[in-house]
Each structure stands twice: as C-alpha cells, then as structure tokens.
C-alpha cells in the first residue's frame, strides 16, 4: 500500500506529500533541542505503571490467595483456578458432570458469543453508514455534520441510553401501542424487551458508533483516483468493492471491531438494564464474587476475561495487518 503515498489524492483525509528526507532528520533527530526521549515517555510510563501494571500484578497475586467465608487469606493456592475450570465430578466417569464444561467457562463462552454476534451486527449496520458518509456524501461539511449526528447518542450518559429503551420497547412502550392500535396484535408482545432480541439491539445501538468512526476514516482515505481508474478499466461496482474498497478499508474495520470487542467483553450493565439480568456474563460473575468478598475468584475471572480479550485481539490483528495497512 506504500504506493498510495506517492499519488495525488482527492480524498478527505489523504496522506500528506512526503517531505524531503533531510528535512525530517533535521526536525526529529536533534538531540540538542527539547527533551530527551526518556523524559518524554516518563509521564506515560509512570502513569501506566501505577494504574495498569501494579493493579494487574495485584490481580494476578490475589488470584492465588485463599478465600474463606471471612476474607482473603495469604495462603497460596490454585483452588480458584480449579473452581473456574473444573466441575465437580469432571474426571469421574460415573458422575453426570463427567467432562462437562464448568459454569464459568460456559459463561465466558456466552460472553464471547454475544460479543461476536454484536460485532457482526455492528459491521452489517455500521459499514454501510460509514460507506455512505465517506463515498456518497461529497462535501466535507456534510460529512462532518452527518458524522457528528452519528455521535449524538454519546451526548447522553450511557445509562440513560440503555434505560430509554423501556418506553420504546416495553410492554406499554411506543411500539406495542402502535401495534395494538393498528390491530396487528391483540395483546402487547413481550419479546422486544428483556429478551435476547432487545439486548442485541441495545448493544448494537450503543456500540455501533465505535465501528463507524474508524471505518469511515479508512474509507475516506481511499484515493478516488483508484476508483476512477477502475471504472475506466471497465470494473463493475462489485469488482471495485471487492478489489479496492473492501481491502483498503480493512484496517478501519479491524480497529472498529477491536474497539467493539473490548467494550462488549467487559459489559455487564446492559445485560442488567435491557436484558433484565437474564443472562450471566463474565462481567456479572466478577461483580457477584466481588460482592461476597471472594476476591481471588473474581480475580481469576478477570484474568480469564483478559486472556480471552488478548486472544481475540491477536486473531483480529492476524487477519488484518494494521501496521502494514496504515
């Protein structure tokens, strides 16, 4: 993709003309000027060390502590890990739990399932919106205005957005009233809310913007000259999408999906508010065990969630090499 840089571009956020190499050298690498690298990275390093590395280390250490009904005891044990992975009777061929997955693995599995489903839905809903903004809207001011319009839901608090579904989808909500008054149903339908349907809908609504942003930016960067060239060569719109637009927007898709993936894996509030708590996510498990002061087990769940997230991100980055694409 490096060729892109050398071409003229008419896109919104195209790459800048490459300046003379000597100019770059002079500007960036001048040890006499400004702060040294060490000083520049110090604030971020200290900050990350204090709020990321130290607490993470604490979580790892706590996960090996022993939990008793009256608090955590400094006695190293892998009990909490066994509890996470192994169901009672797991190795006992006589037991009906023989080789049955533990509740917590299943819960993590359900968390991943809902996350993937939401990611797919966000892509299906978000990509066309981003495409429309970047490709169909010609004027910059309109692109900006419509993009900001997508962000409107973020102007209110997360909780208000989640709660606002009730007057819309509830038993006595707007949709049910409309259906009733039109005579389509004779009593309110209940599948709209406190249901998997409602849960998915709310998750997509809340998180789709995180996908639209990056996809929009990567689409907007595509040099329109490529598209014109393709048209001149007789490519069909589908071919243009498959050969040019699709591949060139992949980095945006990957970044958007990573945002959504990370946010939803740790979700628990929407499940409570919109799904009526009718599901368990690893987030709610952590909360429940925190609530009974069983910190070691909450820590194990937090770590397993983190491992799942890292694996997920690695997979996404395997599919799309963001560094190469950017």
């Amino acid at each position, binding site marked *: 993709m490096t060729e892109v840089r050398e071409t003229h571009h008419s896109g919104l956020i195209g790459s800048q003309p490459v300046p003379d190499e000597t100019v770059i050298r002079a500007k960036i690498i001048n040890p006499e000027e400004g702060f040294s690298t060490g000083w520049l990275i110090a604030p971020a390093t200290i900050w990350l060390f204090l709020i990321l590395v*130290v607490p993470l280390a*604490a979580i790892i*250490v*706590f996960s090996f502590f022993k*939990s*008793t*009904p*009256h*608090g*955590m*005891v*400094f*006695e190293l044990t892998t009990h909490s890990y066994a*509890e996470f992975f192994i169901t009672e009777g797991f190795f006992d061929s006589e037991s009906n739990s023989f080789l049955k997955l533990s*509740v*917590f693995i*299943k*819960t993590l599995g*359900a968390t991943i399932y809902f996350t993937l489903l939401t990611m797919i839905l966000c892509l299906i809903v978000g990509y066309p919106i981003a495409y429309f903004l970047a490709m169909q809207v010609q004027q910059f001011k309109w692109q900006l205005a419509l993009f900001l319009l997508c962000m409107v839901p973020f102007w209110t608090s997360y909780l208000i957005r989640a*709660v606002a579904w*009730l*007057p819309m989808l*509830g*038993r*006595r909500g707007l949709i049910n009233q409309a259906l009733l008054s039109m005579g389509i149903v004779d009593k309110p339908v*209940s599948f709209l*809310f*406190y249901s998997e349907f409602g849960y998915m809908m709310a998750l997509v609504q809340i998180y789709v913007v995180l996908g639209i942003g990056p996809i929009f930016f990567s689409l907007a960067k595509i040099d329109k000259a490529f598209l014109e060239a393709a048209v001149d060569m007789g490519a069909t719109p589908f071919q243009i999408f498959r050969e040019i637009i699709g591949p060139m927007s992949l980095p945006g898709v990957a970044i958007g999906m990573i945002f959504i993936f990370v946010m939803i894996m740790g979700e628990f509030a929407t499940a*409570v*508010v919109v799904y*009526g*708590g*009718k*599901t*368990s996510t690893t987030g*709610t*498990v952590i*909360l*429940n*065990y*925190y*609530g*009974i*002061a*069983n*910190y070691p*087990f909450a820590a194990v769940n937090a770590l397993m969630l983190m491992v799942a997230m890292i694996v997920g991100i690695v997979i996404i980055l395997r599919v799309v090499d963001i560094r190469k694409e950017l």
Partner: protein
Amino acid sequence: MAKNKKTSSKVSRRQFVGGAAGAVAASSVVGFPAIVSAADPIRAIGLGVSIINEIQSRAAKDIGFGIRGQALGYGALFGKTLNQNDQYEVSECYFDMFDAMVPSKVFQPIDTKRIRDWDKVSNLVKTGMLTPGSQIGQGDAPVTKLWVDKDGNPTDGPSRYISAVPAAHNADSLGYNPDDTGRAIDSWGELYSPDFKGKVALINVPQVGVMDAAMGMEALGLAKFGDKGDMTRAEIDTLIEFLIVKKKEGHFRAFWETFGQSVNLMVSGEVALQSMWSPAVTAVNAEGVKCVYASPKEGMRGWHGALAISAKASGKKLDQAYEYINWWLDGWAGAFVARQGYYFSTPANTQKHLPKADWDFWYEGKPASMELNDPFGTPLIAKGAVRDGGSYEQRFKKIAVWNSIMKENDYLVKRWTEFLGA
C-alpha cells in the same frame, strides 16, 4: 472451608496493597495524627439508605464533631467492612454479614454499659421476639449474632457485650399490581402461578433471591428446606433446577438489582408480581401506579441493620464512635428513617421525634390522617392511605426467614450464575 484456621497469616487487602505501595503510603498515614483537632471527624461507611447528608449534618450539629460518611453498594460495604477496618470507625452494616465479621474480629465488642438507651432497644434483636410469642425466623436471625463476650467471641445468651448495636430494619415480601394480578396475593407460592407467566421478577442478589424463591417452592409444597437461610448443597440444587425449568418456560420477566429497577418494572407495567422492598412499593404508589405490598401467610423475609465499631478504633475516636451510635438511638434518626419506611431499634425514642400522624401511619398501620412527607419534605403519602402489611408488631410477629449468608455461599453464587445463564 477451614474456619479461621490461620488468623495470624491473614493479610487484609489493604495491608497487602499498602506493603506493595511502600513508604509513600506509610509516611502519609504517620503524618496525620499531628493535625488532629477537636472537630476531627470520624469515618462511617454504609449503604445509601443510611449514609445521607441530612442525617450526618444533623449528627454533627448535635454531637459537636463531623461524620465523614461514605455510601457504598452492598458488595463494597461488605468488602470494606471486612478487609479495611482501618478505614472507618463505624460501619453501618447488617447482621447477615456477621458470620464473616464476627469470627474475623474486625469489630470490637460494644459495651452495653456505654450505650445510653440500651434498655430502650427493643427485644426484636435482644430475644429475637419483638413481642412475646413471636416467631424468631430461620436464617441469620440477628439475635443469634448479637451477644459476644468481651473478647468478641459469640456467647450462648445475653452478655454485657454485643457485636453491634441494632439499628434500622424491615421485613420484605412481594409487591403486586392488583389490576394485573386480578386477585389479592397472600402467599409466596403465587410467584410461580402460571397466571403470571412472563410477568414475574425476582431480586438478583443471589443470597436474597434464593430465599424468596425457596419460600415460593415451600408454599406450594414442592420442596421442604431445613433452614432457608442456610441451605445444604442438595437443597440449593433442588431449588436452582426448579428455577432453571421455570426460566426456560419464560416465567420470569426480569431480575432486578437496585431499588430503582424494581420501581421501574412495576411502574412500566412490565411485571405484575415481584420480590419487593416496602419503600419501593411506596415509591410506585407515589408515581400514581397501583401497587400493593403483600402480607404472605408464610411470613416475611426480614433484614436488620447494625452499627458496629472497628477493632482499630481507640482513644478519642472510640469515644466519638460511641457518641455517634448513641446519637442514632436517640430518636431523631429513627424518625428520619421511619419516613423512608424503615423501623428503628428504639421505637419509644423514635415516637418522641415523630408527629402523631406519621407515627400512626408508619408504626401503627393506621390510615394517614393527613398528607405525609418523605424525610426530605416531598409529599409521599396521600391522606387516607394505609401502609400495607399492618402495624410494626404484626409485621415482625411472623418473620419466616432473615437475610442470610449461607455456609454454602460460594456454591450458591455459582449455581445462581448457572441459573441466570440458562
């Protein structure tokens, strides 16, 4: 689980983090006592229902020193009370937490001789019976957690020392909208009535929800529990498997976690019948939606607040902690929480601070003789309204079970997780 086997090696989270954080924390803590002054406040932690600005500023005015309150969620309160007793002088906690708190000695035994109105504290916690002949109730009945010796070890009967001073309490049951149910609800068994399929909600706090669910099963004769507040694994399995079947049938509309959610479920008409707290019923009525607080014939589920002093409090701080607790018992605070729908352990003192109209409504169960306000001065009760569940005595005559933390708590939470995910 070995009970308190290795007390010496017990490391609280605070100590651990403190150690890791090193000298910075230590030096700042050491530096503080130098600036202790007469107005130096004490620290109290509790839930949002008792850590309220109005209460604390009144206390400060009456007793001459400040109260620095921190309102926490239930889980955070439990954890902080248990693991960070150097972070508070007074914990406004609950007797159902005491199976964890008493053996780990995070509190210091309270000398009843230093509690001014100890003789005015009702018998609900002292003997387990508010009035003679009442039912003590299963689970962590506060009377079983109250008495300790001067070292803080539980004793069989009355003693000079107590684990904590009894405070606000209430009895919870079911709330329902009579228009939706079409009939009066007088049993926990109605939770599973097919008539209300898809219109039932349970509280999503495993330790509490499981008891409501068990009361329902028992009322229908589907199961018998030895002690609903301390179930065996087999009993938990029976209950959860039944609940999973019901959930898969689509019987439950939702599981609520906060007061506000339960109010919302009722006001929006999403549920007809659900586990509910008494003040939430009042809040639904205040929204103009019909909601009745059931008095199930099997009895209600009680809970009882407590005022405990940290084992780390000493000297002047300890005196202040006693002073603050004595102030709570004095009546003003009892009157304040009465208007939220809670009862307080010194009813005679509460009565002194409550106008007759309020007393008659909240404690006597009589129709309101005039419009009554909540503690913040907002009209809450219309003239002529009657508090559901009858008088204070009637309610507490028949507590079926007290909020509890079971010995099999970890197993319960695990199975509850499975139930919600089913």
